[in-house]
């Protein structure tokens, strides 16, 4: 038969201690140790009078886990029982624990029920009874293994020494028993709930004390197991209602009637409601200011985390140097049904969905089924404007067109499909077909078109298509520094989609750098809006597209160039637009904010010279300036030459403030040059229409289908 030691941590526990020790004398363990942590009542004397060993420790050294470890170290039994100072063993308690450990090999711990004392409130009495009955519906000992509840209570528990030596109690401020329960199951030990190992026990705290105790309990649970108590008002109201009804049933069954029952009913409502509130607050204690935390804690703990971690040195040498404390970690629930990059992960793991077999002659067919997959957008998005201008024209040409929003980062969470469709019509171009959010209703297409790096992996996962195309507005890897986005954007060009690039420069880059198959199209200009308006052109006025939020616009260098121009020609009037707030600049300027297309046409028709920089692909804005007869300065050596040639209508300059200022000054000073650039510009962009752009994109889509036919024919 196993020898048993009983360890009882005590502080001011005289109320039940004598009764407890008498009961223990009846049960007959081999050893009983009382650890007193600074009682100011008669507890040590009571213990000594009962003939048990008393170990006195400094109150500051007390810790629920630490002190119990000390007790286990000082004891010698093969089984070590722990009781709290107010838990009185019932008859048969010790025999039940011994029986629990004999049930099977590998039992590391056992615990028994807490029975209510006669004066216990109906709420606590009912809950205690129901709670422990839940561990053993048939009233027999229950073995709990990995995956079962980790509940364990040091109010009344017994441990196999071998198990305690392997696991030991964590030095935590609270819930060391729960942590032990979880740890031991994880290591393969089992534990036993034995209904016969009962103690009389109840926390008959006052209302406020009770709430503060729950604050501590759930704070401890959070620190040890990461448990975060939910708080939902409707759910709480339902819970409190149910609990009060159950309490009233209990009272009826136990003869509590009349005024007494009414009084307890009111108390029960406050009890259950307050407990839910304080439990929720306790499990979020780290978010509360320390003084308030201390005030709410029954144990007056104001620290944010796991509490004091000092240990008692056997040689009395005092605490060792404390290692740096970790700030308290927070348990975070899964917040998404899947990872943001799940679609990329799937394509990398499983590869693209297979394409449909091509049908001979499909690239020549008059009407096609086209699906445009877009990233989320906002009003004024230039790239989306290009897409919708072209796609609405493809629809008007008789193709069966649909638009699909890929929103894996939830930017358009609040927009439902019909609202998205309306925004496309309102912000960009008319579209009569359907707009879908996500791909639940995916129906297949002759050609599915990716339109931004965020859409490509989604497009690769779509089945029922004959070809995939990629309308590339810009070389998007250059939008990002070294990052996941940079890598993913590069990856999009390597999956065999037929690219339709928004300039010859971009097409060549895709072919040369990524080995992609690619066509090009020229961005169109809305000539109904952008044309020389009948307004007088101002002298010495430079307008600058200062979109500071777009890094590829190199706005700081543009501002330096204008500052240089201002130093040379203080008479030049400078106007900035395209930014939603004024920028700091070393020169005075007129600020226009963000303008509508008709306002832009007016500005371009009045100004003398435009400045618009792009470090990557050429944008629409210089073309719109040229369409209004406004000569424009752009960067040399990037993409502009591929469209306009080295000496076309644009004045090209290197990316230095001096070179840009030189170019602006040339156009301001040389009237002959200005007129030549202005006339060449209007003439050059006259053929750059959205209809023409649509012709080129449609040819690219047919090319994508023809490539598929050619590949299959070759096989």
């Amino acid at each position, binding site marked *: 038969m196993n020898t048993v030691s009983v360890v009882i941590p005590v502080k001011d526990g005289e109320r039940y201690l004598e009764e407890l020790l008498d009961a223990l004398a009846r049960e007959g363990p081999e050893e009983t140790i009382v650890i007193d942590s600074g009682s100011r009542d008669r507890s040590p004397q009571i213990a000594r009078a009962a003939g048990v060993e008393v170990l006195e420790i400094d109150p500051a050294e007390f810790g629920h886990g630490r002190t119990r470890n000390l007790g286990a170290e000082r004891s010698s039994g093969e089984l070590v029982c722990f009781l709290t100072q107010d838990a009185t063993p019932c008859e048969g308690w010790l025999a039940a624990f011994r029986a629990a450990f004999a049930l099977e090999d590998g039992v590391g711990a056992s615990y028994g029920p807490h029975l209510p004392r006669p004066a216990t409130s109906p709420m606590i009495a009912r809950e205690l009874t129901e709670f422990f009955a839940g561990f053993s519906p048939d009233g027999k000992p229950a073995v709990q293994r990995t995956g079962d509840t980790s509940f364990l209570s040091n109010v009344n528990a017994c441990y196999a020494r071998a198990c305690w030596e392997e696991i030991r109690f964590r030095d935590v401020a609270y819930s060391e028993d729960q942590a032990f329960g979880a740890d031991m199951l994880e290591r393969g030990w089992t534990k036993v709930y034995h209904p016969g190992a009962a103690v009389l026990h109840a926390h008959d705290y006052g209302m406020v004390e009770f709430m503060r105790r729950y604050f501590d309990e759930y704070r401890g649970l959070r620190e040890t197991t990461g448990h975060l108590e939910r708080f939902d008002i409707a759910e709480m109201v339902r819970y409190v209602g149910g609990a009060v009804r159950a309490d009233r049933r209990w009272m009826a069954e136990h003869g509590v009637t009349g005024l007494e029952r009414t009084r307890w009913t009111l108390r029960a409502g406050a009890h259950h409601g307050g407990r839910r509130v304080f439990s929720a607050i306790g499990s979020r204690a780290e978010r509360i200011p320390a003084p308030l935390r201390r005030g709410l804690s029954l144990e007056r703990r104001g620290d944010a985390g796991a509490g004091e971690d000092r240990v008692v040195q056997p040689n009395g040498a005092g605490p060792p140097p404390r290692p740096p404390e970790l700030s308290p970690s927070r348990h975070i629930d899964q917040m998404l049904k899947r990872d943001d990059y799940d679609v990329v992960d799937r394509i990398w793991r499983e590869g693209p969905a297979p394409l449909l077999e091509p049908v001979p002659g499909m690239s020549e067919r008059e009407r096609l089924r086209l699906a445009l997959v877009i990233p989320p957008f906002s009003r004024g998005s230039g790239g989306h404007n290009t897409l919708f201008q072209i796609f609405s024209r493809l629809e008007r040409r008789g193709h069966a067109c*649909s638009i699909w929003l890929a929103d894996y980062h939830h930017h358009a969470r609040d927009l439902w499909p*019909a609202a998205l*469709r309306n925004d496309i019509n309102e912000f960009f171009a008319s579209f009569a077909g359907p707009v879908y959010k996500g791909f639940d209703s995916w*129906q297949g297409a002759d050609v599915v078109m990716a339109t931004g790096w965020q859409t490509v992996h989604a497009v690769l996962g779509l089945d029922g298509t004959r070809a995939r195309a990629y309308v590339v507005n810009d070389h998007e890897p250059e939008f990002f520094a070294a990052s996941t986005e940079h890598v993913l954007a590069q990856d999009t060009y390597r999956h065999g989609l037929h690219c339709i690039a928004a300039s010859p420069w971009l097409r060549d880059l895709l072919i040369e750098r990524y080995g992609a198959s690619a066509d090009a199209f020229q961005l169109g200009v809305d000539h109904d809006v952008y044309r020389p308006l009948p307004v007088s052109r101002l002298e010495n006025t430079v307008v600058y597209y200062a979109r500071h939020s777009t890094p590829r616009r190199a706005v700081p260098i543009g501002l330096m160039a204008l500052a240089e121009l201002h130093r040379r020609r203080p008479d030049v009037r400078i106007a900035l637009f395209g930014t939603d707030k004024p920028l700091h600049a070393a020169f005075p300027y007129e600020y226009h904010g963000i303008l509508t297309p008709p306002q832009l046409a007016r500005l371009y028709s009045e100004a003398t010279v435009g400045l618009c920089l792009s470090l990557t692909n050429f944008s629409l804005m210089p073309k719109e300036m040229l369409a209004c007869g406004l000569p424009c300065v752009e960067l040399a050596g990037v993409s502009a030459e591929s469209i306009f040639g080295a000496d076309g209508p644009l004045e090209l300059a290197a990316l230095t403030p001096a070179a840009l200022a030189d170019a602006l000054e040339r156009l301001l000073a040389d009237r002959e040059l200005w007129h030549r650039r202005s006339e060449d510009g209007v003439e050059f962009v006259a053929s750059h229409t959205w209809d023409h752009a649509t012709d080129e994109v449609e040819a690219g889509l047919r090319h994508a289908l023809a490539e598929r036919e050619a590949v299959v024919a070759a096989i």
Partner: protein
Amino acid sequence: MSSIKTMTATDLAAENERLRQRVAALEAELVDVQARTNAAIGDWQERAYWLDRTHIDLNRLMERPGANEVRLTLRAVRAVWWRLKRLKRRLLGQ
């Protein structure tokens, strides 16, 4: 004895051409059906704009207890209102 007709090269070419035309016709029909479906859904989305803008899912709303009763009550009130208006017009000779 079975009478298997031997197909000449000309026959095969003609059959191929017939099948190609059939495929093309089916493809055109598919595009046509898709275009009409798109137009119908687009039209429905046009009408559902304010529901989507205000995040109202009518089907879910009508699944709530009492929703259909509210609808029927409103319908009854509206019918009474219309009758009163008709009566008023008749009495005033409008």
